[in-house]
Structure formats: C-alpha cells, structure tokens
C-alpha cells in the first residue's frame, strides 16, 4: 500500500499557474513545492500538478496547484482547469516584454473560463536577470493596480519572492473566503462548523484525518 500523502489541513485551495510559454511556471511550482530549480527543465505538455501546505493566520492551507502549458492553442485543453480555481498566478518574464504584453489576453481567458471572484496575482518572474530587464517594476505595478491584481517579482532560480508569492495569494484567498463565510453565517446564522473543510466550490466536507 502506498504511503498516504494527505495530511491534516483546514482548507484546500486550487490555484492555477498561467502565462506564456517559457516564463518559468514549472520552475516556480517546483521551487515552491520541492525547493528545486531545474535548469534543464522540459516544456510542459498539457498540465502538471503538485501540492503544498502552508500556515496562514493560524490555519493550515493546502494548495493544489495546476501548472499549464503556455502555448496559446493549448488553452483548448487547459482552460478546463480554471474551473473551480480560487487563485491564479499570472506569470510573465521580466526579461521579455512580449510575455508582459500578453498578460491582458490571459486576463481575458480567466474572465471567460474562471470563477468571477478568482484571486489573481501578477508575477514577474526571472528577477535575477537584472541586466536584461525589459519590463520595469513601475510599469507592471501600475498595470496590476489598474486591473486590481496583486503583484510581485520573483526568481525561481534564486528563490526570491517565490514563497512570498504563494503565501500572499493563499492568505488573500483565505481572508476573502472567511469574509464571505462570515457574511453567509450572518445571513443564515449557521455556516461552516469547526472540523469541516471548505473545498474549492465552497461545499463543506468532513475534515481529513491525520496521517495513518
């Protein structure tokens, strides 16, 4: 029998990694979940999947992260994965302005296929390539403000900002969800009880037991 991989957690959030091909989505994922960076990484075909749990405001939050192929035509397959996602990291490469220009198209993609209240964070990856910087931080920041997105610059290579990016988006999702639940509680005088877990679609289920 295989080892059980599910540990105890309070919340399970589904997050997608999107953005042009070659911006470093897969390495952001491996840096966050396994603290690994692979210089010899391969193009992602279809979707890949990984998980990691973090602590936020005293709760254990498990992130279920879907890494998607970046080429535009793959959206025919990958857009199905936006469904049920409560967060999206929209990644561009700070050394290639073209990948930032496409951010707007990715936002449209999210508007068309994802839940309306999905939390989106704009991520300028490869911040270690300072000498090749083609997208200025101010430019990206004002774009993010304009579109109501969170924003961070990261480097999957030297780890800068990676944990912070995931920590921030997951905490943000958690806060939004608690606020929403609180509102629901007030409305229904009921809501989610202790020992239950909110899943991606807002349904509640029994809390997972500890590792056997």
């Amino acid at each position, binding site marked *: *029998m*295989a080892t059980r*991989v599910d540990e105890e957690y309070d919340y399970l959030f589904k997050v997608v990694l999107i953005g042009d091909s070659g911006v470093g989505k897969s390495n952001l994922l491996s840096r966050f979940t396994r603290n690994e960076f692979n210089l*010899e990484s391969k*193009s992602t*075909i279809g979707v890949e999947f990984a998980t990691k749990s973090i602590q936020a405001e005293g709760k254990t939050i498990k992130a279920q992260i879907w890494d998607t192929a970046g080429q*535009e*035509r793959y959206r*025919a*397959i990958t857009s199905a994965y936006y469904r049920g996602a409560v967060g999206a990291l929209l990644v561009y490469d700070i050394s290639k302005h073209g990948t930032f220009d496409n951010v707007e198209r990715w936002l449209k993609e999210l508007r068309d296929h994802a839940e309306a209240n999905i939390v989106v964070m704009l991520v300028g990856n490869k911040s270690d390539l300072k000498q090749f910087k083609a997208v200025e931080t101010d430019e990206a920041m004002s774009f993010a403000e304009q579109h109501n997105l969170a924003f961070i610059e990261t480097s999957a290579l030297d780890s800068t900002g990676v944990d912070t990016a995931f920590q921030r988006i997951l905490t943000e999702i958690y806060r939004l969800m608690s606020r929403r639940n609180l509102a629901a509680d007030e409305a229904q005088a009921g809501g989610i009880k202790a020992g239950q877990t909110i899943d991606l679609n807002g349904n509640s289920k029994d809390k997972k037991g500890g590792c056997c």
Partner: protein
Amino acid sequence: MLRKLTLGSRRDDDYGERDENENGVVNGTLKPGEGFLPDYEDEGDAIVKSEFLSGDDRERSKSANSYKGKLEETNESNGNDAINGSASNGNYFHGRSSLGDDLGVDDDDSDQEPDDEEVLSDMERDSKGNFLDERRTTVAGGDNTSYSSKEVEAPLTDKYGFIIDPKNQTGSSGGARTTQVTISEKEKARRAEVEALRTTKWLAMIKDWDNIKDTKRTRNRIRKGVPDKVRGLVWNLLGNVPTLIKENPGRYTELCESTHIPSQDIRDTILRDINRTFPRHAMFAKEGEGQDSLRRVLVAYSLYDEEVGYCQGLGFITAMFLTYMPEEEAFWQLVGIMNHGPCCMRGLYEDGMPEAQKVLYIGEKLIKKFFPRLTKHLGRQNCHISMYATQWFLTIFTNTFPFDMVTQVWDCFLAEGWKIVYRVMLTFIRYSAPKLFRLEFEQIMFFFKQLPGAIDGPLLMEKAFGIPLKTRHIEHYSKKFDTLNPDIANRVQIKEQKKKEQEERIKKEIEEAEARGEGGVLTTTLSIPLAEL
C-alpha cells in the same frame, strides 16, 4: 552518419571505463539484485555477472551502452554501410543466438478476441506478469537508490544518447531513458540475443522491402520491435521518406534558406522549446549541432505548413527522429506523420487542437469500456484522462517514457497508426488498476507522474498486444465524437466552404471594379486577405 560521428567524437573521454555499467549496474540506475518481475526475478545474476557473460557478451555490453556516434567510429563495421549510415546503437553481430525464436508473441498473431465482458472483469483483476516496478510507483516514497562514487564522476549516456545522471533518475525529469527497472543479467543477455537475431532477419527484409512491406509477417515483425541498428532506415521506409524527398527535390533546403520567416509568436515558441527538448540527451543538452538541426527542422515545418506552424509537443517527436536520421529525412518524416498515412497527426496540433480533444475522448471511452469499475473509482476521485494522458497522446509517449518502449511504440505507430497508442494506454491502466483502486486523487496523480520510471519497455510492449482492442472499438468512439462535435468533425469542410465563399466574393468585387475601370488597384489590395485565409 556524419552528424553522429561529430557528436560521438566530442565525447571521447567518456567511454574509457564503462564495461562495469551494463554488467554490474543497470544503466547506472539501480543496485544489482533489485528484481521485480515475477518472470525475470533477479536471482543474484548480477553478482555472478562475470561468469555469466561470455567474453563476446562483455564486449557487446560495453559497446551497447556507449553513445551511437562513438560506436560508428570504433566498432567493427558489420559490412552494411546503408545501415550504419542510418543509425546504429549496438554491436550485436558477434554472437549468434541459440534461441529458437523472438519474444513470446506468436508469428501469426491471431489477435483473438475473447468475449468482451469476461475480459473486462479478468483484466481488472489480473495483473500477473506486471511490467511495473512496485517500488518505483510508491506514492510519496523517495528514491533510495545508491550509487558508487565512480558512477557519479563519469558523465555517461545510455544506449539512446541520454545522459545518465545518478542524482536525476526519474523518467519524468528527463534522466536516462532506457528502462530503469531492474532486469536480470540473464534476461538482458536474452534480449540482446533476440535483437541480434532480429537484426539479421531485418537486413534481409530491407533488401526485399517492396515485396514484403505489406505482408502480415512484416507487420508482426514490426510489432515485436524493429532492431535499433536498422530502426532509422525502417522508419524512413515506413514513413515513405525516400518518395517524399524524390517528389520534392531541394524543398527542404529552400525552406531552410527562405527569407520568409515564421511569425514572431511561432518563432519565439520554437526558440524557447529548443533547449527544453530532451535537455538530458547528449545531442540536445547544449547549444550545438543537435539543437541547430532541431531548430531548422521545426522552423522549416512551420513554413511548410503555416496553418499548424509549430505546436509544443512536436519538438520531442522531431528530436527523436533526429537521433535516428539526418536532418532532411527527419523533416520529411515529420511531414509524413503529420499529413499522410496511418498517423495523420496534424489535427492534434492545429489551432484549437481538435484532434487532441478527440483522442482524449476515445481514450477515456476505451478505458471505460475495458475497466468500468476502475472508471467509476477514477470518476469519484475527479481524475480526468486529460490530467495524465494529454502528454502521452501529444508526444506519443516521447517526452517522458523510457526510449526502449517509446521507439517500439513508434515502430508500430508508423506502420499501423493510433491503435498501438491506445493499446499502450490500456496496458498501463490494466496493470496499474489494482494499485489505482487503493489510491485517492493526489496519489493517483503522483502515481501517473512516476509511471514512466517504473516501466520495463519491452515487457510492456509484449503485454500491450494482449489487450483485446479492436479497430472497430476505436472507430465506434471516433464516430461518436464526430456526432457530438459536428463543428470539429466538419472543420475542414467548413473551412473550405468559407474559403470558397470568400474567393467568390473577392472575384465578384474584382469583376465589378474592372467594370468600373479600377481593376489593377483592387486586385492588389484584395489579394492580401485571400493569402491570409
């Protein structure tokens, strides 16, 4: 041949001390004595390896693990230049096999189909003769393989040219790509002998190709696997490459030298994928001839077929071709599999990826048909086929699976088309089923991620032909998909209809303009949208 010689000679230093590799440690990946297969249990064979192998065998093992180019330089010629020129991996020509015949598949391959329902339940229960290495599919388990310091120091390649890195062994991360599971020395020697015997048979077959290519016997020999030494040549014959080159003289060079370049988007995507395609293969690991060839073929194809341009996934397939044949042949092989014959892969990659959706649908339905109970379990776990099989189909297994399996799948795929792809998929499921039943969603995902590293390629292929899949099953679901998705099914007709309407409209406008005496101006302005269709 030239290409490989260059690459081989660049790596001269790497081969000095390699006799221990094949004999002692399977491709430097596993400790001796890690047997897993009931049929081929390793009973300490690896420990008595030196007694077990004859002198000739030791030589053979040494060279079989070297890089192809090196082999062409140093090994004795087998006297067939045509074959050496194509691709050669192992020097299998010394020992004659005493084995009566090839691997267990019968020559007449009657493909008997027992009653479906009965098979289903049997298939879901029975996983005897499993090709999966249990330890390598242990979910959330670490790889405890240990390595001697000597192996860590020497950068090596396996017989397909993949660099062996002791720290990076799992199939999905792109390390060594021969089968990584433990196989006894006895079984390895048996396989080598079978390969030698088959090579002799194939040499005769190639000479007489036009007469024997459509026979059942040839089909069955292909199903058993084309020997690696003649593989490039046979793939060319199967893909009709010589004819395509003859019919399009100089076309490839023209495309390479064309001043017309692909769109920025396509160009960027190709360039970004070049060093992300088999980064652990000696030919493609660094900037150089291998990467240059790959880039040229992909760019040339994007110009040859502007509607498809380039789609991620094609890089892996093209790179695999390049390890077996020169650039121009690899290009026409790509043209062939995309547009002609039983493969016809073009629809997988064009905008909207319509055929990718179709093969995933067919795959899903076939799994449901053969494994209804497991399908229910997977459904309850919200595990959809696109989560694990998208890359299987879009690269026909090339991007993560062991190359002894991949190349054998391609032997058959080039000859017969998609059936083998579904067969292999169903074989994975069949032998994983007992395990999958016990797993939950995340564990299932990790299981599939680790699957490539746990497969014994040749054994899997043997089992794949035992799956009672029929062409009519595939056709049935194919038609069903077309009925459910008329837009996708009729996309070619719809596109042609639109094009025709557009052309007629333009023609009419030109005629009207000419009647007004403004002909020349309108013709030039209107020719642009027509070309963009």
